[in-house]
């Protein structure tokens, strides 16, 4: 595995896994053409073989051209057959490391390592695929370098995985219930009920089965995807940061180092409030691009949990502050002219109960949400006022963080108070930045 000068390669089976979809498609096509005449079958077969050979050779060439190494505090990744690319990833800027195991890779004992670094588009680096032990040891090395535990790889053996304490797990039953009680599912049930009424009224049961079937299939896939992704979500705390493991068929193990969570949002959808369930989502720089899943990181930290468990997890994410003790002030009563439905729930506050300074905003009439942003993570602060707000003497203050589910905005405050809040956020964010953890969070003397 180790080559000259510390260069390493991906696992040799990688090209096959990367092109398996193309291979399967070609094979399926070839089999399908069997029904045709003998000649046509030969042509199709020949084409299929040619495509397979080309795909595999391309994969092998790409594999040969890809190599990576740790160089000082950076990861260097070289790839490309014709157009060579060499990417140097500064590990001090590492935002998260994910180990993803798609079903096929998992069956072969392989895993994909994804590094998220804050930056423009495609700032992430992906190592697909490594053997599972290699992926884990590379991850641990990366985290140790990123933390500042070591400055160079030299010949030091890869560090052991940091010890962890499990903070929360999502029971399967609860996850099933949450998907059944989610918005899309209610739409499904409503549509099916409507179809049933229509079928009975018109006396044509076929209509019912047609509508119900297509609706179930459409929304069913979506619900299945969420279920598949969130199955068995486990959140654990360790010296490397937050660890999240999840997934049924495709599993994903995320590590988010300390100080990398840009903000937290707690959602309580209307129905969930009856059972005191909450969902906890986080914004991590680099995860934002493909929102709510897909190939990039998953922003749902805890898909569903009791309020106590959810708050416990947030206490681990933002260890230096008791956010629920932060005093929030409601928006003035006249805000209801601008936001008639949720005005009564609008509230915002800044506080540092426990040490770290955070801004907390609340909104939502039926489904509640609270957004929490540590002031040290604020990118910019905006004061906004539309014509209606102006007539009412109101203004909103938005706190910008890197892209993700968190949207902390103090809506419809009294305009003088809004300006005061705005100025206060600007000043206190400056102080919080100065006091924040260094990029390399375990660097001695930092």
């Amino acid at each position, binding site marked *: 595995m180790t080559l000259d000068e510390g260069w390493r390669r991906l696992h040799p089976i990688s090209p096959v896994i990367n092109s398996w979809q193309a291979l399967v498609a070609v094979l399926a096509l070839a089999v399908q053409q069997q029904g045709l005449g003998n000649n046509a079958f030969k042509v199709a077969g020949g084409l299929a073989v040619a495509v397979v050979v080309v795909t595999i050779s391309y994969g092998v060439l790409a594999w040969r051209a890809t190599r990576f190494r740790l160089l000082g505090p950076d990861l260097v990744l070289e790839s490309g057959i014709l157009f060579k690319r060499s990417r140097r990833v500064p590990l*001090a*800027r590492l*935002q998260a490391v994910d180990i993803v195991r798609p079903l096929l890779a998992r069956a072969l004992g392989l895993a994909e390592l994804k590094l998220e670094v*804050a*930056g423009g588009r495609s700032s992430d680096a992906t190592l697909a695929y490594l053997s599972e032990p290699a992926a884990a040891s590379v991850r641990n090395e990366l985290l140790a370098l990123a933390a500042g535990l070591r400055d160079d790889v030299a010949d030091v053996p890869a560090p052991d995985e940091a010890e962890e304490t499990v903070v929360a797990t999502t029971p399967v039953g609860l996850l099933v219930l949450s998907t059944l009680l989610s918005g899309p599912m209610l739409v499904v049930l409503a549509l099916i009920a409507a179809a049933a009424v229509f079928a009975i009224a018109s006396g044509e049961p076929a209509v019912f089965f047609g509508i119900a079937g297509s609706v179930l299939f459409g929304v069913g896939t979506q619900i299945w995807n969420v279920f598949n992704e969130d199955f068995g979500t486990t959140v654990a705390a360790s010296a490397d940061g937050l660890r999240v493991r999840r997934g049924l068929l495709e599993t994903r193990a995320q590590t988010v180092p300390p100080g*990398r969570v*840009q903000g937290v949002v707690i959602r309580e959808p209307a129905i969930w409030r009856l059972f005191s369930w909450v969902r906890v989502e986080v914004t991590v*720089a680099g995860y*934002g691009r493909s929102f709510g899943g897909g190939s990039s990181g998953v922003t749902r930290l805890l898909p569903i949990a009791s309020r106590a468990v959810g708050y416990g997890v947030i206490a681990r994410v933002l260890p230096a502050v008791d956010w629920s003790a932060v005093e929030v002030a409601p928006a003035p009563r006249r805000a209801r002219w601008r936001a008639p439905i949720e005005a009564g729930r609008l509230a915002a506050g800044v506080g540092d109960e426990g040490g770290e300074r955070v801004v907390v905003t609340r909104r939502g009439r039926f489904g509640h949400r609270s957004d929490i942003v540590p002031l040290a*993570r*604020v*990118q*910019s*602060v*905006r*004061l*906004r*006022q*539309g*014509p209606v707000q*102006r007539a009412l*003497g109101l*203004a909103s203050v*938005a706190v*910008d*963080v*890197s*892209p993700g589910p968190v949207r902390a905005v103090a809506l419809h405050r009294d*305009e*003088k108070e*809004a*300006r005061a809040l*705005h100025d206060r956020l*600007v000043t206190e*964010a*400056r102080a919080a*930045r100065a006091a*924040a953890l*260094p*990029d390399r969070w375990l660097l001695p003397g930092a």
Partner: protein
Amino acid sequence: MTPDAFAPPQGGWTRVSSRLGAARRFVSLAIAIPATAAVALAAAFLASSVAAIAVVLLGAVAVAVALVLVERQWRAIGYAERAEDLLVVRGVVFRQLVVVPYGRMQFVDVKAGPLDRRFGVASVQLHTASAATDASIPGLTPEEAARLRDRLAALGEAHAAGL
């Protein structure tokens, strides 16, 4: 109607070039005059000359309103370079004041389209790690834009923070 919420910081706002007003007036007229003329002609042929005159009058009122808005809009744009952050204010109907700490800047863009160049203006836009940060300053003279870009880049370097 109190101006307090958007009151300027100490030192006041630096306003942008009046050439931005000229550029925007040009755009408004370049759209409004041919559009009014076309509709008026159509009205003259399809309806009556009275309708055409009405259309022209309506067009004139619309242009007048647009010109007043344009004038107020460019005059409402301002920025202030403070020790630690940049403030940008803009808007008449929808007003916004954004504060970007220098340490949060990821990069700075200077842009000037063909029309901007014709009128001798350029815009400077600041980017942070947040896509929501909306800090662009249109209507700077090219020299001021270049100066601001270099100063912001230098300050960004000096205050650089992680995320």
